[in-house]
């Protein structure tokens, strides 16, 4: 269970392919290898908040090894007691949610038998591969009496009983609302040698950590959920049947192939809102043509397909139902056009109650949870695009986590970072660059503003992006979400939109229904862009240094005209410095000096913009390697200002305020903001003091 990121770091230089030609289009795979198959029957007891289930699992050994054991996750045991690794790491708080007295949850495997009836229950052993916490019960290993040969398979039946926690950390119940995620005993991933940089084959099955998500193999799910008839149910995949029973319960049957997880929800209060995303009506021919041109793909390769969208709304949020629908459809369209068709027939969006926000903003295959508030029904809160942002982000995970199935434990940035980056692009395209995240009263909430603010706030706490999620020094959300998003934006600025779009498309095409590592992304980017980008990935993704360039000093001064004897057109002329002197050397000129510094350790090529009075902006390229660069320019005009990254494409720059400097100070801003500050203070004094 060696972390693959070490291998990633070593592989980067090897993976680079030089040459300017973009990669030829890869076909999007239609289906996964379907390594595993689950048939699950589960019954919900709303009185005890427990579920009882029985699963029949068939696993095919995808490696060349003979595999003598099975490793499974029991995620719900992360909530079992204060000794679990999850609770130890989280301190009972996660994603803004705090455990309650009812937040204990667990799952017991009461029986584990092979298809031939061999009882292995007694052979189950708890493992703790990530730490020395023997109290952690989130991973089990089951030795098999006979090894599973290469390409052979094993079928086993597990009977389990689980206590759902009061919603905390993605899963659980709140009154009659249930979000049942990470609930069944789930196989880890057997990684053959060579996969994600592994030297030897082995199971990858990590404990449940506070700051990490999941990793599983692709397969088929057939799940039958029995609940009291008053519940409205939604789940991963397509509903294949509904059977009512005499005892007042109903069994819902769902199926889905080519996914690696299954989640479901139930709540009597849900209001179902059904819509269809139409690949012909919701996407114009021009949009198809533009996407094909941008990506260098054929019109057929960017063709989308219809999707049934089901939004399960809380009644209090019904005023926002169409916002969910609209953003879901926009996401299906824009992610699909950019990264390939969404291949599933259904998408279910769950709107959780506000006091179950621990389950909000979560992704499962074909099934996502949004999140909003009753307040967002009303101005000024309605101006924020919270529900849209969450819906687009979680749908984005269908591509980065769902279909490109990275290991979220070890390389969380591959799903969270890429999803944050691509979500920003979709939000900007759909809602405008300045108002991508909405507008609160008079303040625009742009995506780039948000990224810049986050980079400014957190970049000084140094850590690297490529790292197991539970080993970050802190600020998991910065290193897994925001820094990679800012780094990819910066890369986009460097490569250009078209090349970057093709990098992302190719990565999706190559790794759909597979498990890539960071090195695979780096190699794809270098190959598609036709240049060795190892220097960038080493510094920004594997290193922990910061990027910061500054214009440190600017000055401009009049240069006295040349005096003395000069040769002009073969004639010797004496210049006196008077304006009547003939010859170019006598004209009034200004010498401008600009000192640009590299403040951080990361080196990055930048362009220095220079603005002289009455002239268009001049640009000078600098490789940014040295600690500083001084420009001395003689022009007829005075220098007004100098700037590095004038276009604002180096989003990763830790301090953009120092990116530019003007020669003459400007008092407008200080006057204006001081006047407003003064006015505010006067109000305070007036209120308290009269």
């Amino acid at each position, binding site marked *: 269970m060696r972390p693959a990121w070490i291998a990633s770091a070593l592989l980067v230089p090897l993976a680079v392919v030089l040459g300017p030609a973009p990669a030829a289009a890869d076909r999007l795979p239609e289906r996964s290898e379907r390594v595993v198959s689950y048939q699950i029957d589960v019954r919900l007891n709303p009185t005890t908040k427990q579920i009882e289930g029985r699963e029949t699992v068939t696993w095919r050994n995808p490696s060349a090894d003979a595999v003598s054991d099975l490793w499974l996750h029991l995620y719900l045991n992360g909530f079992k007691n204060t000794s679990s690794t999850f609770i130890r790491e989280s301190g009972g708080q996660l994603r803004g949610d705090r455990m309650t007295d009812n937040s204990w949850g667990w799952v017991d495997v009461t029986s584990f038998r092979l298809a031939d009836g061999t009882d292995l229950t007694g052979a189950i052993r708890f493992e703790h591969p990530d730490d020395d916490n023997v109290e952690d019960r989130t991973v089990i290993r089951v030795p098999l009496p006979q090894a599973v040969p290469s390409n052979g398979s094993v079928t086993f039946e597990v009977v389990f009983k689980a206590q759902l926690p009061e919603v905390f950390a993605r899963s659980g119940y709140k009154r009659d609302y249930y979000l049942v995620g990470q609930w069944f005993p789930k196989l880890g991933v057997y990684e053959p040698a060579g996969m994600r940089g592994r030297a030897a084959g082995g199971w990858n099955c990590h404990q449940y950590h506070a700051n990490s998500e999941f990793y599983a193999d692709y397969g088929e799910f057939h799940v039958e959920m029995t609940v009291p008839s008053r519940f409205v149910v939604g789940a991963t995949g397509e509903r294949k049947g509904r059977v009512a029973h005499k005892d007042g319960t109903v069994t819902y049957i769902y199926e889905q192939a080519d996914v690696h997880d299954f989640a479901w929800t139930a709540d009597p209060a849900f209001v179902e809102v059904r819509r269809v995303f139409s690949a012909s009506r919701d996407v114009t021919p021009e949009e198809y043509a533009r996407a094909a041109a941008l990506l260098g793909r054929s019109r057929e390769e960017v063709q989308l397909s219809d999707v049934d969208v089901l939004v399960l709304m809380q009644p209090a949020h019904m005023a926002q139902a169409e916002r969910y629908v609209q953003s879901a459809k926009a996401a299906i369209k824009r992610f699909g056009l950019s990264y390939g068709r969404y291949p599933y027939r259904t998408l279910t969006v769950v709107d959780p109650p506000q006091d179950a926000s621990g389950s909000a903003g979560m992704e499962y295959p074909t099934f996502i949870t949004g999140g909003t508030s009753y307040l967002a029904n009303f101005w000024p809160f309605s101006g924020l695009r919270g529900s849209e942002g969450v819906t687009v982000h979680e749908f984005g995970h269908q591509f980065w986590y769902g279909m490109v199935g990275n290991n979220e434990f070890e390389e969380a940035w591959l799903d969270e970072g890429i999803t944050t980056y691509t979500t920003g692009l979709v939000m900007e395209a759909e809602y405008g660059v300045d108002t991508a995240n909405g507008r609160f009263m008079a303040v625009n909430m742009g995506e780039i503003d948000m990224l810049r603010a986050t980079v400014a706030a957190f970049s000084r706490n140094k850590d690297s992006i490529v790292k197991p999620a539970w080993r970050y020094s802190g600020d998991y959300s910065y290193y897994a979400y925001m820094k990679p998003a800012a780094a990819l934006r910066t890369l986009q600025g460097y490569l250009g939109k078209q090349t970057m779009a093709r990098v992302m498309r190719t990565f999706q095409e190559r790794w759909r229904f597979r498990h890539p590592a960071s090195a695979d992304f780096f190699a794809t980017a270098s190959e598609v862009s036709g240049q060795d980008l190892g220097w960038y990935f080493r510094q920004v993704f594997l290193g922990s240094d910061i990027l910061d360039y500054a214009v440190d000093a600017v000055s401009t001064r009049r240069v006295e005209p040349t005096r003395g004897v000069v040769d002009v057109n073969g004639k010797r002329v004496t210049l006196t410095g008077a304006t009547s002197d003939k010859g170019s050397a006598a004209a009034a000129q200004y010498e401008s000096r600009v000192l640009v510094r590299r403040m951080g350790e990361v080196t990055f090529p930048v362009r220095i913009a220079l603005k002289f009075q009455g002239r268009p902006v001049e640009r000078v390229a600098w490789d940014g390697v040295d600690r500083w660069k001084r420009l001395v320019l003689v022009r007829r005009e005075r220098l007004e200002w100098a700037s590095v990254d004038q276009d604002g494409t180096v989003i990763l720059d830790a301090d953009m305020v120092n990116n530019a400097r003007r020669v003459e100070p400007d008092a407008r801003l200080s006057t204006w903001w001081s006047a407003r*500050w003064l006015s505010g203070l006067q109000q305070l004094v007036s209120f308290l003091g009269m």
Partner: protein
Amino acid sequence: MIGRALAEGLRSATRRPGLVALLWAWNLALALIVALPFWTWISAVSANAPATDVLLDGADLGVIMQLVLADSRIVPALMAAVAGLALVSLLSGAFLSGGILEVVLSDGDGQPLLLRFFRGAGHFFGRFLRLLVIAGITAVPVTAAVSAAVGAATRRLTAGGWEPATLWAMAVVLACVGLTVGFFVLALDYARVMTVLSDSRSMFRIWWRALRFVVRRTPGVASIGLVAGGGVLAAFAVTTAFDVAYSARTAGVIAGAIVLHQAMALARTAVRVGQVSAQGLYCKGLLPEPVPVPVPVPLPAPIDAPLPAEGPPSAPVDAVEHVGRES
């Protein structure tokens, strides 16, 4: 009565531009003490940094964050300065109120405005300070109790998990807390008015009477408060609308905004003077007419004559026209 008090109060403010200007200048001077360091800081970080120019168009979270992070001491320093200013404002309020009431409630005795203002301010400062402390001691636990009681009463609403009910319950708690605070703020205003009208030194008694007064005369007291509050809100809305509507890219807009902000500060001050005046008139009109106090005329007593017998006890004094001062 309420309308008359309001109209008279507002007229009183317009008749006393000197007082309004004095208060505005006082507030400006206090605010400048904290505004000047801010100006020094923002000038230093923005004067040569074109990246900050986006702030001329409005707030930009990214730029603000970077400015603040560039000097981590600035936010704590500003917060401390604002807290200090708030404290000074409270103390200054105890001082200014006496001056305002002296000017608006007395007919003037031909003496200059400044003399009357500072005479009243100085005369009542100690008593108004005591009133402030008493009001604080009363208001804090009562407000906390109201918050707890209303919170408990609305808990049943929130228990069901129906989100609108939860938010409405929160709104009810906030409204009740706001009303309670407003009640004590108005009571403090009327306590000051009563102190000036009666020249009493018994602040506990005055505070108790003011509380009773506000409770008994809620419609009138609230009307005057609401009209004044409306005026302040209107001034705030005008400045905010201007700030949002115009980008401060040109010197003209900046100058216009500064003038408008100060005009609105002046207007707020005038509204406050009008409110205090109206409160005084309202209070005066409702309080019982002063009972003439029999003043025993001292007779020249023979050196060896027995001491005069004590006169009859005075009638209880609720209020007297304010005609003189204790030395």
